[in-house]
């Protein structure tokens, strides 16, 4: 018995063909080229845009912060610079007062200034001048003044304040400070040489090591006014701040730029860190999206392959069913005997599920000119096996009829025949011997449903007690019954597919059949056509075979 469940993936026995679609479809997935999905691309673009925005924001915040910090630092430097003015002015002013008081005593001047002059002290060179045109200093401590020292005596510099004198275009450039108590007394002049390149680092002042600077004399930032700087090239590029610092009677201009990052290296790097992390996250997200999309595509491809395999199975299944059906039609009689006074009709309706063909069969055998034997049966199971078993049983019946057409005898011999063989089936068989002229039928049933007798007005099932089906190993005795038939009557024999319905008492199906046959008979319809239309269209699940015999008089 072959399983007729249509959901079965592959019918047994087709394994060799089954592998073919799987093999051919296996090539397609590898042949595809990788192509990024739209979702992944969109993800990357969006991720990069967000990253760029965050990165620019961080950069802007950082720059703003740096500028603010730099302003604070400039003010600090201003304060420090301004604070150095008194340390210069106080000794010079004291010396000037001493000179005025002592009438320009050189020895006293020298002994007063010596502690302030020398390497590591406030001054490099300090000299005392008599105002009013002296060409030489009254006294000098430390290195001799290099630049236009005579001008100190001749220029009328502002008394009572620290005068700044830059000699920047001189071959030995210097920065000088002058102080005089009154324009008629003495002036004290200090001078510090400047490096010709103006390069210098702030001496030991590590609090400002994070800054580059340039100091100009006056308010302009002309290269000719440059006093000192920590860098090779000026002006500063990038972030820088400038401020003016009053110093004595003059002014310095201070320009400052950060060496590194004032707010800390981390905040300087933050925009780049955000950029790097953002790009990585975007790429990772895109990769994941891509993998998901790829997985989805693969699932779709797989589903497509399964559909192809299913279609292939379906094709093979239908093919096999067609083989079985062809075989069965070949096994059923294609011509029926012509018997005077009798009209014979047959019909075979396959199961609507389209599954395997069943083992239903019928035969109408002419015994002599006045007698026919009607045989109808149903071999258990479906498919090729049932069809071939049916053929075997059918031909055995043909042989036994030739010996003795009595129905009980035929069934008994058939039972013997089957019992002697190894088999795995059962068959219900109904044999009806029809004597046309005598209007008599003789029946025997091996587990088969009784036939319906229509007598022109009414319809009834022939009263018949069934014996066990063919194929059962215990010896069964078959009984036969004879019934008289009125003129014009019709006998309808059928298989169980016509009346069996799920969850329904068999009697209900039999009664339905009886009613339909009776109304069809009254309307003068073709009985088998009516039964096929009404009883094999909807809920029936099995093959159905029908044979009708009508007495024409």
């Amino acid at each position, binding site marked *: *018995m072959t*399983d*007729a*469940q*249509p*959901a079965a993936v592959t019918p047994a026995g087709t394994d060799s063909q089954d592998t073919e679609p799987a093999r051919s479809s296996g090539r397609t997935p590898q042949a595809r080229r990788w192509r990024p999905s739209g979702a992944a691309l969109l993800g990357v673009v969006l991720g990069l845009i967000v990253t760029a925005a965050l990165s620019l924001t961080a950069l802007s915040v950082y720059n703003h912060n740096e500028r603010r910090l730099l302003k604070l630092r400039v003010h600090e430097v201003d304060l420090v610079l301004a604070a150095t003015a008194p340390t210069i002015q106080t000794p010079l002013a004291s010396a000037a007062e001493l000179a005025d008081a002592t009438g320009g005593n050189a020895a006293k001047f020298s002994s007063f200034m010596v502690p302030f002059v020398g390497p590591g002290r406030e001054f490099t060179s300090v000299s005392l001048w008599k105002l009013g045109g002296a060409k030489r200093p009254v006294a000098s401590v430390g290195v001799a003044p290099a630049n236009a020292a005579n001008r100190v005596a001749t220029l009328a510099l502002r008394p009572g304040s620290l005068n700044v004198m830059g000699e920047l275009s001189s071959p030995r450039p210097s920065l000088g400070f002058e102080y005089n108590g009154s324009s008629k007394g003495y002036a004290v002049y200090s001078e510090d040489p400047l490096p010709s390149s103006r390069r210098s680092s702030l001496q030991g002042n590590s609090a400002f090591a994070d800054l580059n600077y340039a100091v100009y004399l006056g308010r302009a930032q002309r290269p000719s006014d440059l006093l000192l700087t920590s860098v090779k090239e000026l002006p500063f590029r990038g972030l820088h701040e400038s401020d003016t610092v009053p110093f004595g009677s003059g002014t310095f201009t201070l320009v400052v730029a950060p060496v590194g990052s004032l707010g800390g290296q981390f905040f300087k790097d933050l925009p780049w860190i955000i950029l790097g992390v953002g790009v990585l996250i975007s790429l990772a997200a895109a990769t994941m999206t891509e993998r998901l999309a790829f997985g989805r595509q693969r699932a779709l491809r797989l589903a497509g392959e399964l559909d192809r395999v*299913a279609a292939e199975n*379906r094709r093979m*299944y239908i093919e096999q069913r067609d083989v079985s059906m062809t075989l069965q039609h070949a096994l059923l009689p294609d011509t029926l005997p012509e018997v005077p006074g009798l009209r014979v009709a047959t019909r075979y309706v396959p199961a*609507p*599920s*389209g*599954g395997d063909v069943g083992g239903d069969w019928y035969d109408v055998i002419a015994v002599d000119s006045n007698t026919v034997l009607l045989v109808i049966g*149903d071999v*258990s*199971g*479906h498919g090729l096996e049932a069809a071939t078993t049916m053929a075997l049983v059918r031909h055995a019946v043909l042989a036994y009829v030739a010996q003795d057409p009595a129905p009980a005898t035929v069934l008994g011999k058939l039972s013997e025949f089957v019992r002697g063989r190894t088999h*795995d*089936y*059962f068959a*219900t068989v109904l044999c009806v011997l029809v004597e046309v002229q005598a209007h008599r039928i003789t029946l025997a*049933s*091996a*587990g*088969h*449903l*009784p036939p319906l007798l229509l007598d022109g007005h009414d319809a009834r099932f022939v009263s018949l*007690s*069934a*014996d*066990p*089906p063919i*194929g*059962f*190993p*215990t010896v069964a005795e078959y009984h036969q019954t004879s019934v008289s038939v009125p003129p014009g009557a019709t006998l309808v024999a059928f298989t*169980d597919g016509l009346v*069996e*319905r*799920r*969850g*329904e*008492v*068999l*009697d209900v199906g039999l009664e339905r059949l009886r009613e339909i046959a009776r109304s069809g008979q009254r309307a003068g319809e073709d009985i088998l056509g009516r039964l096929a239309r009404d009883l094999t269209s909807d809920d029936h*699940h*099995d093959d159905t075979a029908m044979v009708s015999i009508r007495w024409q008089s």
Partner: protein
Amino acid sequence: MAELGDTKPATLRIDTHAEESGAAVITLAGDLDMSNADRLKETVAAVTAERPPLVIFSLASLRFIDSAGIAVMLRAATDVGEVRLREPTAPIRRVVELTGLGHVLQIEP
């Protein structure tokens, strides 16, 4: 594959247990037809392989049986010797009567 399965697939539940007497009881529920008769056939083969003295098909919840299902029960009867039907519903009782199987598949009193 829907076009191949116009009829709803029959659902069948099969349970087996042994009674104290040694009888093997196969309880069936649902519909038994050619679509699932093979499943029952395997169960019956496993049960009869242990040579129980009696096999009982408990059929109180079996709504429908067709010739394929009857054939499986008959097969059990040929293998074991005695098969009884317990509490068959009216449709099944009628099938057994009409097909002349009453003395092969005895209905339990």
